[in-house]
């Protein structure tokens, strides 16, 4: 427990110091790399809320990542082309303001998660895995075939969106924004995990019959967890789109769902900070192995296989011990 806490601290400190060092050394690429890690971490923390705490193996979180991305893309596209998003029944304009984009991304992806969850949670086990995967694929094909927002080619946004007049095009500023969000999300999730909701949700994962016997309905717990989870991943999608100033159907692809899950596993399932370690490790591997070989994913595959077969607790399991603390 104490080791886990120290590891959390060390992780957050590295994510603070490294980009600052890169900034002082004038290495904008490394700052961007760190920003990717932080945004992926947010997506992973979102998934982990459903997966680690609730045991919901969603292989469709790309849906929420993509919806968050397109929330940003569509709003900013209308703002930059000066066309309204909708004129009837009420006039809705596009927006280049980050807070508006975030709010829309969170709400839209949360709503989608509510809908997908309501259907998918009627089943469990493999059905659930396959159904969530299928729903994400549905969004993928939908965005490819819907021509208004770039179809297969995606949408480019020329200037990064604004926040309180800051220069968000400056990598370190955008990093600070993303890091701030990570801290907020971690705070919210770790509170929820220790609150009544977290106790009941995790109990439902361990033993659904027990939760029913004390008068609670697992389905409702799962659905709320899935919705929150989707909303957080959607926020990460909006940030990711803003980082690249580009959205495309790739955000919805099954590989994206798989990668988000990989962040969770590399770090350690069920640890609030696990996905942060996992995403950082993923980016590090991508950077290092990508330099060794064009086919770095083979190595990533081998490493992942090794983790699943032999080191199931992930990075946190290796360093902080197998036991997940509860109190």
């Amino acid at each position, binding site marked *: 427990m104490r080791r886990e806490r120290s590891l959390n601290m060390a992780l957050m400190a590295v994510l603070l110091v490294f980009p600052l060092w890169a900034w002082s050394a004038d290495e904008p690429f490394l700052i961007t790399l760190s920003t990717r890690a932080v945004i992926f971490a947010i997506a992973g923390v979102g998934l982990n809320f459903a997966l680690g705490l609730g045991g919901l193996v969603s292989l469709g979180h790309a849906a929420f990542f993509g919806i968050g991305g397109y929330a940003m893309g569509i709003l900013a596209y209308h703002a930059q082309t000066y066309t309204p998003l909708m004129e009837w029944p009420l006039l809705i304009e596009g927006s280049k303001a980050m807070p508006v984009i975030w709010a829309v991304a969170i709400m839209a992806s949360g709503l989608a998660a509510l809908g997908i969850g309501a259907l998918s949670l009627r089943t469990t086990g493999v059905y659930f895995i396959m159904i969530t995967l299928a729903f994400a694929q549905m969004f993928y094909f939908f965005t490819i075939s819907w021509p208004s927002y770039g179809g297969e080619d995606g949408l480019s946004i020329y200037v990064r969106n604004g926040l309180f007049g800051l220069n968000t095009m400056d990598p370190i500023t955008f990093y600070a924004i993303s890091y701030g969000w990570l801290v907020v999300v971690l705070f919210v999730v770790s509170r929820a995990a*220790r609150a009544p909701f977290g106790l009941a949700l995790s109990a439902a994962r361990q033993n659904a019959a027990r939760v029913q016997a004390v008068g609670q309905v697992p389905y409702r717990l799962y659905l709320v967890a899935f919705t929150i989870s989707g909303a957080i991943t959607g926020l990460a999608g909006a940030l990711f789109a803003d980082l690249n100033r580009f959205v495309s159907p790739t955000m919805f692809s099954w590989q994206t769902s798989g990668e988000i899950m990989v962040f969770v596993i590399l770090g350690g399932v069920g640890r609030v900070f696990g996905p942060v370690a996992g995403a950082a490790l993923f980016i590090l591997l991508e950077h290092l192995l990508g330099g060794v070989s064009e086919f770095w994913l083979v190595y990533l595959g081998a490493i992942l296989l090794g983790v699943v077969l032999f080191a199931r607790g992930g990075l946190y399991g290796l360093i902080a011990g197998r036991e997940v603390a509860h109190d």
Partner: protein
Amino acid sequence: MTEPILKVEGLSKAFGALEASRDIWLDLRPGEIHALIGPNGAGKSTLIQQIAGGLAPDRGRVLFDGRDVTALSTAARARLGLGRTFQISSLAMEYTVLQNAVLGALGRRGGVFRFFRPVMRDAALLKAARAALEQVGLAGVERVRTAELSHGQRRQLEVAVALTLRPRAFLMDEPMAGLGAEGTRAMTAFLRRLKTQAPILLVEHDMDAVFALADRISVLVYGGIIASGSVQEVRGDPEVRRAYLGEEGAP
């Protein structure tokens, strides 16, 4: 006579050609232990499932506290005060003993959809949870992980969690299973005290315990109740002796 808290009226359930429950009438009155016995495959589990809400009957109804609960879910029945323990310990194994008890207290109080305050610092919940643990004699191990408990302790914890719900009636599925002689004696003494708090519908295989504890016994064979009455009546019933007791070699 006092009004029964739990009434089962004409419950029937078939799985294909197999009649697992056949027109079952049963009740549970305040202050009593009503034991449900029968050979393996007699349909005890199916019946318990229907009373608890895990399985919908084909016909008939379940009344709890004068209210028809046949259409209610397991969770809703639990909230009304039907406390249940399982045949195979059904606990959150990663949690500590105290966390399992707090989960029960939380279920009783409601307000599960709260996301901010740490639940393990909630004084009211902790108090209720500790009181229940105290009552079953697990106060000393509240920080132990449930997975590390002995089999007997898990049975006790099951009862403790049910207690946190402050139930109006207990539904206990083989609480003595696997307890050993000493454990069974302790549990028997405990249940005898517990029934004054809320009546118990007890499914049990241990005949000595049943005869020592039960105020009434109903005998289930092939999905139907073949006899129901006091210990003396059931023991003396020739049909029961033939169909059941003889088979198991009990007195």
